[in-house]
């Protein structure tokens, strides 16, 4: 039963990753593109956690935490660059 639920959740997040990729490519505004990239990072974190369950390893939680931090910093940097034309003033 868990294997089936794992396959379902992995499929859902994989399709979600493709949808965010589509939105990144055909975004109407820059804000849209930043939002799509941020959602892509979130989907990637969920996929990493699911892979950690199937690999029976706790290593992937540290990886997911680091990717969450890098994703947040990159989103803030992108938004700040658009707003101020500079990241660290």
């Amino acid at each position, binding site marked *: *039963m*868990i294997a*089936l*639920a*794992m396959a*379902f*959740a*992995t*499929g*859902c*997040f994989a*399709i*979600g*990753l493709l*949808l*965010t990729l*589509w*939105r990144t490519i055909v975004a*109407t*505004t*820059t*804000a*849209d593109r*930043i*939002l*799509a990239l*941020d*959602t892509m990072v*979130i*989907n990637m*974190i*969920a996929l990493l*956690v*699911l892979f*950690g*369950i199937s690999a*029976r390893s*706790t290593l992937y*939680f*540290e990886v*997911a*935490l680091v990717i*969450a*931090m890098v994703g*947040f910093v990159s*989103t*803030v940097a992108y*938004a*700040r660059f*658009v*707003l101020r034309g500079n990241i660290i003033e």
Partner: protein
Amino acid sequence: MALWQEIIVAAFLIIGGGFGLVGSFGLIKLADPMARLHAPTKATTLGVGGVLIGSMVYQAFADGTFSVHELLITLFLFLTAPVTAMLISKVHLHQTIRKSELPPTGTDRPWATLDKQD
């Protein structure tokens, strides 16, 4: 693992996957850029949260060890999601809305993102 334990873990995983898909689908479905800001909040809080709680419960049932790493990731995502949403809406305000279309702020200062615009 007993059947009821498997049912609990599978339920958390299916809830998480479903909400993650809904959140990403909202990015495609909703028409307005600011309406789209609403959709991925579900993917963050309920989707990833469901998967992380499922993983935590699975570790507790399968190995008998209780880890709090997952709670750290959930807490971090909960903390950063509002900051991200605020910055993205500021980018939208900055790029698409003129100063004359905005309501007055009620103070001496103008809207913070539009300081340099005419």
